[in-house]
Each structure stands twice: as C-alpha cells, then as structure tokens.
C-alpha cells in the first residue's frame, strides 16, 4: 500500500528522491496523507486544464469533507449504486430507499447483506442510510463533531440496522468482509443485490466476468457521490512531470477513455464543455450499454456529498459496538 511506502520514507527522513511521483487517492487515503504531512502542494490550480474542473462545486473542492486546497487534482468521480440481476428481478420490485429495503428484506429474508465496516462499500452504504434516516447530511458537516454527539444523532440509523439484522443473509450473524466477497455471493446466487461505487456503471466488470452479463444498476434515493484525485508525495523526484501527467488526465479524450474502460465518472465539468470536447464525452456515455450505467439525470438527482474522515471513524466504531460486536 503506497501510504505505507510514503510513511516509511518520511520516517526514514527521505526528504528528496522519493520512489513515487504521483498517486491516485481519495477520501480516507487523503486524510491519512495530510495527517502525516506527506503531500506536496498546493499545485492543482496551476496546471492549464484546471480551468475544466468545477472547483466551485463542493464535491470537488472538498475530498470527503476535507478541503482539497489544490493539494490534489481530480481524475474521476464515483457514485454509490445497487446492482441486481435483470434476469431474476425487475428494477421496479427492488427497494429504492432504505425504508423500502426494510420491507423488501422482510419479504425476502436472507437475500441481502452488506460488507462489514471498515470495508469502504459497507461504510458508504451505512453513510447513505445515515443521511436518509436521520434527516440529511448537513448536520454532519461540522468538523468538530464528537463521537458522543454522533452516537445520539445516529441512533435511528443503528436502530434500523439492528432491526434489519434478522432478515439479512445468515441472519446478520456474520457479514462479508470485503465487497469482492459480496460480489461473489451475488454471482453465485446467494444474495439478490450487491453494490458498487463506479461512476459510469458496471460494463467493465461485466466484460471482465466479475458480474453476470444480465447485471444492471440503479441509484438509491440517496446515493453518496465523491471524486477521486491524483496527488504528489512530499518527496517526489519528478514533481513537474507529475503535474504534466495530472494535466493530461484532465484532457477530454483521456477522460472519455477512463469512463469507457474503468466505469469511473468524469472528473471535468462536462456541462461546461462545448464543441468537440463535449462531443467526445457525450459519445462515450452514449456508447455504454443501457442499464449498466445510471442516467446522468438520475445520478444528479440522487447524489449526496461524501462527508469526512472523522465521520467514517465514528460510523465504524458505533457499528462495531452496536452491530458487529459480540
């Protein structure tokens, strides 16, 4: 894990000539790297393609609630989606909100589960449920939020998860440790739903065979969305070259390739593009098979910001206390 590598280099006092020049980060990694003083910056507003980025949008200016401060440059975006098998179910009969999920799970016991925190997908699903069940995300945007305050505010969420447990796979006695495990269970037919965070759908997963060819996605009514970035370590050997790469990653053709090949969403502001630049992006979105990507309108309607590092820690701690513990 590159965070370990950079941390070791800092602990060894290696201030120049580091082995990594550019890293792909977001959220949790970004928090750790800033905490250890491990990034070079600010630099992201100085590259030419920075004008294509919508820095006034909080989902770009803040990475999981922390100020980006131009210490990293966007590459792609991602949004939480549910995956189902269109050969077995119709989208209309599946739950689109967590309230509906409770009713659906009671009618279909043992057919749903989620990856246990600290797995990223599990924590993200719980975060989405947190926003829906406790009245929105704004109340969690405060950096000074304490664990005690969180416990009180999140009670309805953990009551819900507790009530949901008996209807989950294996009656909630155990949860898959990673999303790969949940995907395997979905492909094997042990559960009916799994989840993903890719911003432009699952066509790449279907092509690689990780998901069945009839798999499709939809957004829950509250879907967490966030941006992923590239950053430069404090001791990078070729900082200028790294910035050039970051610039290239924001080029419309590169963004189009990224969308088509990895299922990531666009890091640049597609609505502000015109002419050939807009065409390149629109073409690639149009080329993805229907159902494997949610429409951009749906995505925008349901998206909710991915809030900060402390929140993730609190969610994991209280989940282990109330649900995952003995």
């Amino acid at each position, binding site marked *: 894990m590159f965070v370990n590598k950079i941390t070791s280099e800092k*602990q060894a006092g290696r201030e120049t000539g580091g082995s990594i020049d550019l890293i792909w980060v977001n959220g949790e990694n970004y928090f750790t790297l800033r905490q250890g*003083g491990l990034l070079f910056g600010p630099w992201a507003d100085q590259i030419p393609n920075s004008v294509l980025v919508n820095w006034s949008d909080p989902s770009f200016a803040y990475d999981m609630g922390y100020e980006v401060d131009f210490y990293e440059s966007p590459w792609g975006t991602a949004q939480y989606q549910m995956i189902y098998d269109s050969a077995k179910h119709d989208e209309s009969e599946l739950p689109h909100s967590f309230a509906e999920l409770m009713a659906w799970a009671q009618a279909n016991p043992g057919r749903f589960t989620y990856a246990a925190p600290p797995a990223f997908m599990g924590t993200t699903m719980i975060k989405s449920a947190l926003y829906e069940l406790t009245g929105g995300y704004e109340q969690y945007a405060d950096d000074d939020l304490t664990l005690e305050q969180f416990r009180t505010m999140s009670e309805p969420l953990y009551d819900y998860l507790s009530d949901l447990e008996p209807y989950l796979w294996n009656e909630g006695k155990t949860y898959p*440790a990673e999303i790969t495990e949940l995907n395997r269970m979905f492909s094997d037919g042990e559960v009916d739903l799994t989840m993903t965070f890719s911003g432009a759908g699952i066509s790449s997963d279907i092509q690689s065979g990780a998901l069945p060819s009839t798999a499709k996605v939809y957004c829950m009514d509250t879907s967490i969305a966030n941006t992923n970035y590239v950053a430069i370590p404090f001791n990078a050997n070729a900082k200028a070259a790294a910035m050039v790469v970051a610039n290239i990653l924001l080029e419309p053709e590169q963004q189009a390739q990224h969308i088509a090949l990895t299922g990531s969403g666009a890091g640049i502001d597609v609505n502000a593009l015109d002419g050939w630049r807009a065409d390149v992006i629109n073409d690639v979105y149009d080329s993805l098979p229907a159902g494997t990507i949610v429409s951009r309108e749906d995505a925008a309607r349901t998206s909710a910001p991915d809030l900060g590092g402390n929140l993730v820690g609190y969610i994991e701690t209280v989940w282990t206390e109330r649900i995952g513990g003995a």
Partner: protein
Amino acid sequence: MSDRKTWIMLMPALLVIVAFFIAPLVYSFLLSLNFFSITSNTTVGFQAYASILGSKSFIDSLAFSLTIAAVSTVVSIAVAIVVSMALRRTFIGRKLALFVYQFNIPVPHLVVAISVLLLLSQTGLVSRMLFALGIISAPSDFPMIVFDQSGLGIIIAFVLKFFPFIGIAVLSLLLTTIDDYEMQAATLGAGPLRRFVYVLLPMMMPSILFSSILVFAYAFGSYEVPFLLGSTYPKALSILSYQEFTDIDLNSRPQALAIANMITLVVVAMVILAYMQLNAMNRMGVRKDGEA
C-alpha cells in the same frame, strides 16, 4: 575445528537471523511505543498496550485465536496418531494411501482455505450436491460451516494441513526406532493397549511436541485462513492487527504493532514452555531419537 572457524561458519546464518528477524522485532517494539511518529501525537510510552489490553475486541480476538489454534492442534495430533497407526501395516493400496497422506504438505494454506470455501460454503460443491439429490430443500439450509462464529471452517482448514505434517514425523518413528521397542514389549507379554500407552505414546511425544509448537504458532498468527473463512466477530488477532494498521488514522499504528507484538509474545511463551517440557522428558530418559 577451532572456535574462530566455528564462529565464521555460523556468521552468515546469524547475520540473516539478526537482520531479518531480531531487528524488525525491535523496530516493531519501538514503533508500538510511538517512536518515529509523523503525526502531531508524539508522546512515547506504553499507552498503545494499555489501550488494547482494556479493549473488549482485543480480549475476544485473543481468546478466539488461542481457541482455534489449540483446537486445531489437538485435533490434528489425534487424527495424525490414528492415521499413522493405521498406515503401519502393509495392505493393498498402501503406497497410494501414503501418497495421498503426504499430498497436502506442499499445498499452500491459502489454497487449502479456498478449497474449504468452495466445498463447504452454502453455495459450495457439497451443498449443491445435497440440493441436487433432494436431501436439503434450499442451499441456505446447508449448515453454516464456513463463516461460522465458532471458527469451524478455519479449524477444518488448519486440521487438513496440519495432520499430515505431524503424521509423517510420527509415522517414520513408528516404522523404525519405536518398532523395535514395541516388538520387545510384545515378546514380554504386553497387550496392544499397554504397548500403546507405555511404549508408543511416550516415544512419539517429543516429535509430536515439536511439530505441535510449529502448528500452534502458525495457526495462532495466521492471517489468510481466518480472512477467507472467518466471521465478522470475533476476528482473529492477526486480522485485528492488520485492520488497525491500515486504519485511515495514522495514530492507530502503535496499537496495530502492539497487537502484533502480543502475538509474538504468546508464541515465544509457548515455545519456552514446550522446551521446558522437552527437557523434562530428556531427564526422564526418553530422548528425541528414541534411545533410552
């Protein structure tokens, strides 16, 4: 051979052990005390140890890891003795049986764990066969062997790997040194049970003890098997350590290393106990090579 020559010949091996074993242990200990911290929290001390010893999840994980390691070791010893005793006689297909017996040894634990997963999970081969035969009405009716909170799947995977390992050493003893003594006891009129309890078992003990330490230590610190086959809670100690180490908060690292050091401590304690027991056996006159 002079003393100096002996030391020169030992040097390379000793250097490797110190460089790749002792030095990292010392460094890990220092890190657990929060030396070399790069965050704003730079207080050095035993607070990481105090924190984990007071944490319920650590105590539960410690108990869990100790239990599965102990159960795996004991079951493996029992199975190893039974199978090795059976393989002493010549019978049709013995060579094939011996080959199958040893087949597991070079197979990595990870592969055995995945095999257990593919065979015994609720969508595994055994479950699907029983479902196809109509013995169970749905795959989810198959008992939860893997991912069970008791760690049953983990124990099965460990036993499958460990019993041939212990068994081979026992079998080779049974076929050579012990055989002579058993013959003598038989000619002196001892029945099978007396021979087993008073001749075979004591002579197998040093070898069994040796392999058991290795087996216990491996099971106690193993990561990949509990990771693939374990449940959400309680987690094996190595998994707890890894999760703390990869926590987004760098301040969790001293705790991660404290847990890792506790694993080392337990294993070292087991080794010391085993050596004390071996020495006691030596003094009683039953030595490892079987010479009384």
